[in-house]
């Protein structure tokens, strides 16, 4: 599991796959925000 460094706030992972999965999750959140913004313009 990822843990956040309490001093720097930097995320730490124990494997590359885990880090890539987290980036994929972040991407999902950004995507939802972009779609919501675009739908708001309709």
């Amino acid at each position, binding site marked *: 599991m990822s843990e956040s460094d309490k001093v720097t706030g930097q995320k*730490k992972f*124990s494997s590359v*796959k885990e880090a*890539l999965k987290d*980036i994929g999750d*972040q991407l999902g959140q950004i*995507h939802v925000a972009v779609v919501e913004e*675009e739908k708001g313009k309709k």
Partner: protein
Amino acid sequence: MSLTEERPNTESLKRKTFEGSLHVPNVAIFLKRITIEFLQILFKTRGDFTYDSDDSCTKIQITDQFTVDLESVHTRPAIVGIRGPVTWMNRGLGGGSQESRDMKTGSFLYNDVLIGSMAFSCLSREGIEAEQIAHLVFNSFKFFRPVLQAQGVFHLKSLNIGAESLVVQEGDNDDLHIVPVYISAQVQDRWRLSNTTAQKLEQIIIEALDTSIS
């Protein structure tokens, strides 16, 4: 199974690869392929982080998350593409995406915009190098946006650089630093529904029913 077509349907919009100018009907594959190909071509021209399609010569890996060689990321930096969701926007009057109707045949032409997202994880043993690669990726999309638009990307909606994160693996002496770049892009899609399609579908259903009876 071929994912590209030499000659696209005249009604479909052009979504071309850089290499071979092949039409990619699948929007999700198009978005992933065009962005990774775009970065590979740009990094081929660089003096530092020079990309080469030969794995033994390249100074940087630029690839998809499912084909990345995780062993070699400790010896050379990498840009790993991750495709996110693709969303149908359901545009047009009444959300029907309708573009036009042919009064002679009764067929409808539809046109819509899809939004797709990609992340590029820039990996390096050095944090500052990962940041620098992310900066290059970010600027490449910002500066050369018209090049992507000429290949069939309708519009780049958002472009972000994420925070640096750290990978500390047990048994490895070197830590890995990752800086992600997120992009969201609109891609246009067009399709026709005509009576021919309906007749064919009816024929398939009747044939399927016949098969089930016999």
